[in-house]
């Protein structure tokens, strides 16, 4: 069964190609490419990815303009129907700004852009994005961002932790994120936002392949469903 995915490109996205390559390499099927101004996602999708980059030049707040672009209405409807939606880096910022995930991504606490490999601990290995990992497994995934400092109030953070919605944590906090959070899930578990870039760790030539299991998990969840 073909894995029908789509990668959304906003003006200023710059990891959309990497995301498309990752999805094609892992699933065997090239994703559809969707432009931010499109009114609708293609029908019958199994997976939607919002890539990294600097959509709309990070105007106003990172992700805030993209969150209000035409295609996001369709992405929201897909998410509500249960279609898996992955937002990486700027994609995570867009999902938070769009209200599909709680919290906000603020300027890194140390102010500087951070670009390096980050070691993450897999906190939830039950989700459709993370079932290919072991709970507590440590994986190395690159980070590259300026606004990755995850913020939510304590009540929200307690709820996320209590409901197992923290997908990944940094072993060494690289941006000031509350409770070392690197990735969070929505309540239904079909929307994941994360600052690290799994699509940059799927081929040995990348220097590591720890991101591959994330895409494999999503593909397998479709086959099992």
């Amino acid at each position, binding site marked *: 069964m073909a894995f029908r995915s789509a990668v959304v490109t906003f003006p200023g996205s710059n990891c959309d190609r990497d995301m498309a390559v990752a999805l094609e390499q892992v699933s065997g099927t090239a994703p559809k490419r969707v432009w931010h101004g499109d009114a609708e996602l293609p029908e019958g999708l199994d997976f939607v990815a919002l890539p990294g980059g600097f959509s709309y030049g990070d105007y*106003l707040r990172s992700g805030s303009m993209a969150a*209000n672009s035409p295609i996001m209405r369709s992405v929201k409807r897909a998410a509500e129907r249960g279609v898996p939606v992955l937002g990486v880096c700027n994609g995570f910022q867009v999902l938070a700004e769009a209200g599909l995930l709680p919290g906000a991504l603020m300027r890194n606490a140390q102010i500087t852009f951070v670009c390096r490999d980050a070691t993450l601990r897999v906190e939830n290995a039950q989700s459709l994005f993370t079932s290919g990992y072991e709970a507590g497994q440590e994986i190395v995934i690159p980070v590259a961002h300026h606004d990755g400092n995850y913020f939510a109030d304590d009540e929200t953070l307690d709820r996320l932790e209590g409901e197992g919605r923290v997908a990944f944590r940094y072993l060494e906090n690289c941006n000031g994120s509350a409770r070392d959070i690197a990735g969070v899930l929505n309540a239904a578990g079909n929307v994941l936002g994360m600052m690290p870039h799994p699509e940059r760790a799927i081929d040995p030539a990348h220097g590591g392949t720890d991101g591959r299991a994330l895409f494999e998990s999503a593909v397998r969840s479709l086959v099992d469903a």
Partner: protein
Amino acid sequence: MKVRIFVRLKPGVLDPQGRAVHHALEGLGFDGVDDVRIGRMVEMDVADDTSDEALDKMCAQLLANTVIEDYRIEKVD
């Protein structure tokens, strides 16, 4: 009608930018600055009959992220 929207980080939310500017002010020799926080001011020309409710919605839906920011609406004339 000219309207100014003042957006600022909520109390208690860390403002690394403000902290860096605070540090720079100290470096320039300005003493007695206890804290610096950076916000954003959005100035808009809007139709005179724009309702307060509409202005509030503009702030809540786009101009401010109410997870981390507060806003204040000021009508200039």
